[in-house]
Every structure is written in C-alpha cells, then in structure tokens.
C-alpha cells in the first residue's frame, strides 16, 4: 500500500470510508513534491483545491498591509489544509508555504465537489474535521483573550506534547513563529520560556524540549489549578 493511502486512512476526513470511495478520491488526487520554502498558494489567489500533507511541514500565514506576517497555523504530516476555503468564498484567505521539503496530496476543487455529490457520506467526515478545527480555534481565541503570556506558552507545549507523554520533543517551528502564533513579542516569549524552565515545568535544549510536569503545565494553561 502506498504511504499516501495510509495517511489518508488515518485522517478524519477519510475515516470509515469504504475502499472504493478512498480509491475514487485517490484517483482525483495529484501527488506534489516541493522543496523547502515553496509557496503553494498565496493569499488572495483563487482557491483551486485542498491539500493533505504526507511528509513535511507547511505554514499558513496572513500578511497585513504593512507587510507583517501572522502565522495562522503550522500543518504537519497527516493533516490537511484549505478544505474550508473550497466551501467558503473563492479566494485563499492565507498563504501556504512549505517549511521543509514536503510531499503532499492535492485534491482539485471541481473533481472533489463532484465526488462529494456522488458520495454525500463524505460530507459527514468533512463536518467532523471542520468541527475539530473550529474547536481548536475557539481554544486559541480563549487563550488570546483570557490568558497571559505564561498560560499561552504552557498551552502551546500541552498541545505539542499531547497527553502524559514524557518523551523529549523537538520544537519544529522557530521561536519567532511561535511568538507570532501566541500573539507575544519574541522578548516576552524568551522571558516566559526561561521562567517556565526555572520553575521546572519544562526543560529546553535548543529546539529540543521535554515536559517535566504535564499536570502542572495543563493547570497553568487553563488558568491555574481549579479552586474548590
């Protein structure tokens, strides 16, 4: 089996799909390999379809009128992007650029919509997938409106490290990108990282990090331990 098929099967969009439906979707997909720092589409371009990352990493960012960039999301292997843009409006709301050499599956819009029409059950997977994305965005809004720098950074590590995983991880985005995603200045981020290390929540060595106190970090991310 192609690795691409395995990636698709694990994706929420294609979960529980009968083999023939998966084959039909794969038949319209184009495999694309791109070197690091390739723009896949630019903000304002007409939306031509959506992507699933098989290997590699892609950043989605918005540029403001004064040229500042805001990283909306970093998409990793097994994740998809731009499927919402296929349905909402005709322009890409963000620019997508590979952060490293990446292999992707591209699903062109029109053939994809035709498959959806023939197989409406695919829409349920789409609803589920968009719902999860929405849930993550609501959590981000919460973090940006209700939480201070410490809580935002703690939340970032909780998201990356997953639940109760004590193994070391590698921070796969630059600290500048991380600061932008959290709405912090790079200086505030550095100060916060230093204090979280000092207090023993995390250990950092360059881009490698380890979460030492998952519960503590989770509590911190959610605004301190629950008061009874």
């Amino acid at each position, binding site marked *: 089996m192609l690795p691409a098929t395995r990636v698709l099967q694990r994706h929420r969009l294609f979960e529980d799909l009968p083999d023939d439906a998966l084959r039909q979707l794969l038949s319209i997909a184009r495999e694309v390999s791109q070197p690091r720092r390739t723009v896949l589409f630019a903000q304002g371009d007409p939306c031509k379809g959506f992507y699933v990352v098989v290997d590699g990493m892609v950043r989605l960012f*918005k540029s*403001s*009128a*004064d040229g*500042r960039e*805001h990283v*909306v999301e970093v998409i990793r292997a097994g994740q998809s992007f731009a*499927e*919402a*843009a*296929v*349905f*909402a*409006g005709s322009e890409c*709301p*963000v620019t997508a650029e590979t952060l490293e050499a990446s292999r992707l599956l591209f699903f062109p819009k029109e053939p994809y919509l035709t498959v*959806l*029409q023939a197989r*409406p059950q695919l*829409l*349920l997977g*789409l*609803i*589920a997938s*968009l*719902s*999860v*994305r*929405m*849930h993550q*965005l*609501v959590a*981000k*809004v*919460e973090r*940006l*409106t*209700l*939480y201070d720098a410490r809580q935002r950074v703690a939340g970032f590590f909780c998201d990356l490290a997953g639940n109760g995983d004590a193994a070391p991880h590698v921070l796969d985005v630059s600290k500048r990108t991380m600061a*932008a*995603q*959290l*709405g*912090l*200045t790079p200086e*505030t981020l550095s100060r916060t990282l230093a204090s979280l290390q000092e207090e023993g929540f995390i250990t950092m060595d360059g881009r490698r990090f380890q979460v030492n106190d998952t519960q503590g970090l989770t509590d911190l991310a*959610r*605004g*301190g331990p*629950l008061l009874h």
Partner: protein
Amino acid sequence: MSKTTMPQCQGCRISDRTVWASLTQESLEDLAEHRVASRYQKGDVIFHEGSPSTGLYNVCAGKVKLVRTGRVGRQTIVRIAGSGKTLGETDLFREDARHSVTAQAMEETVVCFLAKPVLMEYLKDYPDMMLEMVRRLAAALHKAEQRVESLATKDARHRLVEFLIEMGDEEGEPHDDGIRIRLRLTREEIAEVIGATLETTIRLMSALKKDGLVADDDGHVVLKDPARLHRIDRSGAGLPVGAGARGGR
C-alpha cells in the same frame, strides 16, 4: 429563567435562511413535527459549556452570544449569532460531543431545536442540507481565523474599531447622527468580544466618543463617522492606545 416552549413554528418566516432551506415543502412540514421552539428572555441560558451536545439549534429571532469561561472566571464572547444562524453544530460531531461554549440570549430570543437522531435522518436524505452545514462551518472557521489573527496582531483600540464596524454592517440602522447599532451592547460585552479588560474598554470608548467617532443613544452605540472608522481600521495606526502589547488586555 423564563424559557417557554412554543407551539410548532408553522409558516416559519425565516426558513429560507436556515440550514434546512433546501428541504421540500412536504419535508419542512414533517420537520416541523420534530422541531421544538422555545422563547428565551435576555440573560437566559440556552445551553451550558461542558453539557452534552444533543442536537442542533436554530436562532429564529433575537440574538445569542456564545461565551467561553476561563477557569479564573473571566469570559470571552466567541460569536454573536442572529436569526437564521445555527448553534451547537461544531460540538455535535466531535468525539466528546459536549458544548464548548455557553449560549445565552442577549435580548428576547426564539430558538428551535432539532435532536441529533432526527437531524442525522435528514442529513442522510438531504445531501444539500449537509452541504449547507459544511458551508456554514467553513464560513465560521474563516471568521474564527480572522479573530485569532486580530487578537494576535492588533492592539485593543484597533480590535474595538474593527468590532464596531462589523456590528454596524450586520446590525446597523440609519440614525440622525450616522449608523445606530440595533443590538444593545454593554461595555462588559464589548470587552469580552475584543479581549480587553473592562477598564481599557471604557477608556477606549470614551476616547472614541471624544474624537467624535461614536456616541451613545439609550444603550445603543451610534457610529457617527463610519468613513473615518474604516480608515482607522485599514491603516491600523491612529492615536496612542495605552493598552500595551499586541493581544494585550
């Protein structure tokens, strides 16, 4: 609590703006048998954050705010939904199927509810209804992404101006002094939307008033100079903010 259950909404006047707009007349009548409409007074809670999500809600009249509460008790308004908008659709299909927000009426509001098993039957039979749900989710996602971008990159004054313009577009009505926002918003609610403290919000609103950009009319905000507000929004710059760093409260 003054929630009252209403008889079926026969001849619903907003059905062409709902998620079930694509249904045939016969199916709409059948659907009406399953829908439960309730009237809520200002401040009433329609569902609570963390409670099980059991179906889809449609706002028939009025305004609902979707609120998220942090552990420290502070709140943020995630979205304001008016008539024709659906509530709870993002919680229904996630694995834990619990409400991620609290829905609270901002004025007298009528909401109708469709239980998940019935909804699933309709979705199966009407792919267009499913497609409409996807479109709504996609549009809501884009709005949420813009919100995250604003919070991360714009200062509190800019976010306030952006929100007032948005409310003017969605809720504006002509007024002697400019555009009046039909929905009454407390300073606290504005603070919870723009992610600033109440003190900052009060100070920023006073400054906008002093600049002749907005006015108060019996609890309604009046946009006195929409053109200048738009210019401030586009340029992002303007007067000093005092609200601190990006995303600062």
